[in-house]
């Protein structure tokens, strides 16, 4: 293969599928699913399918204000950095086959790292907006970050330890070929789901945004284009997070490999279908979670994560260790 073809293929991966264009579309679909389901859970009609896209366009066309007191450059760069941060990891997460497009040994660490970028971008942007609500919200974002990152990392560690690899693709194929491991990861999966909810700052963990207390906190001064990017970031983060959890805990495209060879076209199509089902199922769970709970206070949130989820994640690691050494699952 010539260099030009390879370069073209890589560009296609980055810009079209599974990169920017696909993620953009799928993120809006996920937002629609989330909002519609939330509305239906509350017995409302909910938005029409084009609403997320319409909102995005509307925000793009609006004036994007930079407050006088704000640190202009940082304030303006934050949303772009945040979006770039969440767009990249999808290249390391398997979608239609067990192999991600740019898989390499250790990409799990990169993905986890990239997924923290939007939070940091939000912290920088929110702080430098110099708005009182923004700054209080920023402090909360930071406190919350320390709350959920540790259980999230620990939970993601469990399948990595079981598979003996730091590559998301490697873990997906390991779990996919040994589906009996899926129930073993149940605790870790639950911890990761809750941590993801906190990462996304959704009820009951929307403390930094807390509409009734802080009017969306760090985002309060953002408007127009920049707000649109931040909102898109949240949607993409939701999709990427769901894709990551599905690859780590649910075996990625499994059972596509069992039905048709994952390398073949049929396998890829089935694998992609499985990807959609699994990610939307995760979105479903996260939406129900946000519908049935009240917001916690920041110190309650931290104690939930430290007193409950960290120990649970450690128990999960112990379970994986026991299962691994006793070799009950072939």
């Amino acid at each position, binding site marked *: 293969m010539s260099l030009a073809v390879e370069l073209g293929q890589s560009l296609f991966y980055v810009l079209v599928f599974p990169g920017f264009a696909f993620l953009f579309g799928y993120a809006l679909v996920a937002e629609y699913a989330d909002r519609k*389901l939330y*509305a*239906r*859970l*509350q*017995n*409302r*009609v*909910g938005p029409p399918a084009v609403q997320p896209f319409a909102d995005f366009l509307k925000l793009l066309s609006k004036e994007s204000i930079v407050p006088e007191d704000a640190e202009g450059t940082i304030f303006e760069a934050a949303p772009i950095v945040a979006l770039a941060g969440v767009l990249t990891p999808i290249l390391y997460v398997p979608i239609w086959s067990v192999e991600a497009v740019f898989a390499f040994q250790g990409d799990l660490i990169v993905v986890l790292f990239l997924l923290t970028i939007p939070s940091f971008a939000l912290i920088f942007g929110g702080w430098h907006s110099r708005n009182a609500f923004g700054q209080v919200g920023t402090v909360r974002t930071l406190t919350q970050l320390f709350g959920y990152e540790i259980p999230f990392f620990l939970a993601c560690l469990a399948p990595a330890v079981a598979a003996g690899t730091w590559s998301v693709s490697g873990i997906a194929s390991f779990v996919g070929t040994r589906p009996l491991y899926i129930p073993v990861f149940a605790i870790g999966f639950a911890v990761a789901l809750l941590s993801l909810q906190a990462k996304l700052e959704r009820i*009951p963990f929307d403390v930094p945004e807390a509409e009734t207390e802080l009017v969306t906190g760090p985002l309060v001064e953002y408007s127009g284009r920049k707000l649109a990017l931040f909102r898109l970031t949240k949607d993409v983060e939701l999709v990427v997070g769901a894709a990551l959890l599905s690859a780590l805990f649910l075996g990625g495209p499994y059972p596509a490999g069992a039905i048709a060879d994952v390398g073949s076209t049929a396998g890829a199509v089935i694998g992609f279908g499985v990807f959609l089902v699994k990610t939307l199922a995760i979105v479903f769970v996260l939406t*129900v979670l946000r*519908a*049935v*709970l009240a917001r916690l206070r920041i110190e309650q949130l931290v104690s939930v994560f430290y007193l409950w989820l960290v120990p649970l994640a450690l128990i999960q690691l112990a379970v994986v260790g026991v299962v691994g050494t006793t070799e009950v699952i072939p």
Partner: protein
Amino acid sequence: MRLPGKLVPEALKTLGKDSATIRYPEQSRSMPDRFRGRVAFDPDGCTGCGMCERHCAADAIVVEADGSEISWRYDESACMFCGQCGESCPTDVITMSEEYDLASSDPASFETTHTFER
């Protein structure tokens, strides 16, 4: 240990229900018989006695008599839809209609004037 999530069964049950809200303005609800919307006035039978004006707390009705010519004016932007004018009118020519979507950006459209002979 008390776990959260008491509302989960109810929330999932709600998924199967018809939604409680409708898409206004494509759809709208119907008003009950007693609904008090915009004041409807029928000049036939009005004696120009001015009771409606006298009992209107919002000063939304003004009745003026010039000889045998009566002018009856109603400002729906001032009206608070209490229905007292209808109740006070001795000849029952004032009724409360079902009209409720009265918003308009043209102030002149709020005024109604009837001029007639007694």
